[in-house]
């Protein structure tokens, strides 16, 4: 007879009568234990954890499954603590309902939780400074940076570098991107000739030499620039120029960045100084030189009310678009999807330096402390490794139409296109996959299946009686 194990957290009273009822109803043997106690995991049909939804998010369930080496799909969690309080009268009924449902839909997948430890080696590009190497060696992480040409390919959580003479496996890649800076908008020759349009950096140097009293200065900030620094500088410049020199300031951007500490304030200050912020599609801004070649006609359409703006500017300052790939990376990187750069402000839920490619880190500064922080991050990644679930996702060969939507939308770049010529199919690299299921939601052919740890086809907690508020 199959066994179901109830593990409960805290001193919650477990409704034994209901359990007996369930036992009879669906003929299972239910064992009740407190989380602390240990148990044998042989012929377990189901492990049911009763606890609080706060403490039992998926990562923890996975770890639990890992420790006990149980198929993660057999581990189900029920937020018993909350449910008891929310539905005091019907809680146990709900629990029963949940168990019945869970046991009903028992197709067992051979899913397995695996702890993946990447190779304890790191590839640094371009060739690292001594200082960095030392810092890494302090953590006992050997640094590789072979002479190009060579090729980097992903292999599970690891990266394989191959050149003529060598074939090396590293667990992590650190990039110091060499930003190729390019203007965010098309600059016709005659506009260039005026010399009135220039990147932020060059403008900085001008500040001391030129007067901007009553002048019109336009800042153009492309969407790609996630860099807080740029925004901070633009805000500051805009504020100071309009305050001290009564300059007329325009800031044209697709998104105005206020989502960082202090920025809300900076933004408001700058506006109160009279600087104008306009949202517009950068690509549609049109520049033309004035007759005297002493300024530029700036033309754009506001996003708000599609109003056509045209005015004369004395200076147009752009934050350069930064290409996310480091120096010639495309030549050595044979990745399925390009690397995107995330700056620290981007997402507090991701470790610093991290990119959308697991194990690839991006760094931009060159001082000891920074290196230390970087090395720590990489070290934690390499030592903690990643908990992955095998055989939990599937791509239905005959349904997949190779539209590449998954490849483009996967936030973890876990999708690979495998196979040759016509037989190509999308394939999910489970070592990289975080089981978020976004690809599944996007796949227009519904070819992707994710047997995630929660059921989606029935409601987990169903209010009994009247749903009326």
């Amino acid at each position: 007879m199959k066994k179901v194990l109830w593990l409960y957290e805290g001193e919650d009273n477990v409704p034994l009568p209901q359990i007996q009822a369930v036992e009879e109803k669906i003929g299972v043997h239910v064992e009740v234990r407190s989380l602390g106690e240990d148990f044998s995991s042989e012929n377990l049909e189901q492990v049911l954890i009763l606890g609080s939804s706060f403490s039992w998010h998926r990562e923890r369930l996975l770890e639990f499954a890992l420790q006990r080496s149980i198929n993660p799909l057999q581990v189900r969690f029920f937020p018993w603590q909350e449910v008891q309080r929310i539905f005091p009268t019907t809680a146990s009924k709900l629990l029963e309902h949940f168990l019945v449902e869970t046991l009903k839909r028992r197709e067992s997948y051979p899913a397995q939780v695996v702890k993946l430890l990447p190779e304890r080696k790191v590839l640094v590009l371009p060739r690292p400074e001594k200082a960095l190497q030392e810092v890494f060696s302090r953590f006992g992480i050997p640094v590789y940076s072979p002479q190009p040409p060579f090729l980097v390919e992903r292999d599970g959580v690891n990266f394989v570098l191959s050149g003529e003479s060598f074939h090396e496996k590293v667990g992590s890649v650190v990039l110091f991107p060499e930003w190729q800076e390019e203007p965010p908008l098309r600059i016709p020759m005659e506009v260039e000739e005026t010399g009135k349009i220039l990147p932020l950096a060059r403008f900085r140097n001008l500040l001391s030499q030129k007067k901007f009293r009553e002048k019109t200065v336009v800042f153009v900030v492309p969407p790609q620039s996630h860099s807080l620094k740029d925004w901070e500088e633009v805000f500051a410049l805009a504020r100071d120029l309009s305050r001290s020199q009564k300059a007329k300031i325009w800031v044209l951007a697709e998104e105005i960045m206020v989502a960082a500490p202090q920025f809300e304030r900076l933004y408001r200050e700058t506006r109160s100084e009279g600087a104008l912020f306009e949202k517009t599609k950068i690509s549609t801004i049109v520049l033309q030189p004035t007759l005297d070649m002493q300024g530029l006609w700036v033309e754009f359409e506001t996003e708000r009310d599609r109003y056509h703006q045209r005015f004369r500017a004395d200076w147009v300052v752009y934050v350069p678009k930064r290409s996310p790939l480091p120096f010639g990376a495309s030549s050595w990187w044979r990745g399925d999807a390009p690397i995107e750069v995330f700056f620290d402000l981007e997402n507090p839920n991701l470790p610093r330096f991290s990119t959308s490619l697991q194990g690839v880190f991006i760094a931009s500064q060159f001082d000891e402390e920074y290196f230390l922080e970087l090395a720590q991050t990489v070290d934690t990644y390499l030592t903690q490794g990643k908990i992955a679930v095998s055989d939990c996702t599937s791509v239905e060969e005959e349904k997949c139409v190779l539209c590449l939507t998954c490849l483009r939308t996967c936030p973890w770049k876990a999708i690979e296109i495998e196979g040759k010529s016509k037989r190509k199919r999308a394939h999910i690299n489970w070592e990289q996959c975080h089981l978020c299921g976004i690809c599944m939601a996007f796949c227009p052919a519904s070819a992707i299946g994710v047997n995630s740890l929660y059921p989606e086809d029935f409601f987990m907690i169903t209010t009994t009686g009247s749903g009326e508020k």
Partner: protein
Amino acid sequence: MRIASVGCDRQGFPALLRFLETFPEYRMDVTAVPCLGTVHESMMLHILEDGYQLLLLAGCPLDSCFNQKGSEFAFRKAQRVNALLTEAGIPKRVACAFVTADKIGEIKRVLESIVSGQKGEEP
């Protein structure tokens, strides 16, 4: 009205439970998904077909979604579904609330704004 709600197991789901706990006057059916990004249009419509007037999606705040874009995707899909529903003249809606487990006020705000007529899709 009958409300169904889906929460991402990182933030949304705990928040929903916490919400039901603190505001017993609200009642809704709750389920959890790994990430709001999993919820797609036909799934939303399927849920609404089960006789709910409102589907509430609760997930991580847009800029700190663990899966980087999941919440945003869900938000856009919800908007699309709402557009379809309005077009077809079906009086059902999908609403989004971007919350952390301790910021449940947002859920209340969204629900109220729905109840009081105007759609509260925007976070």
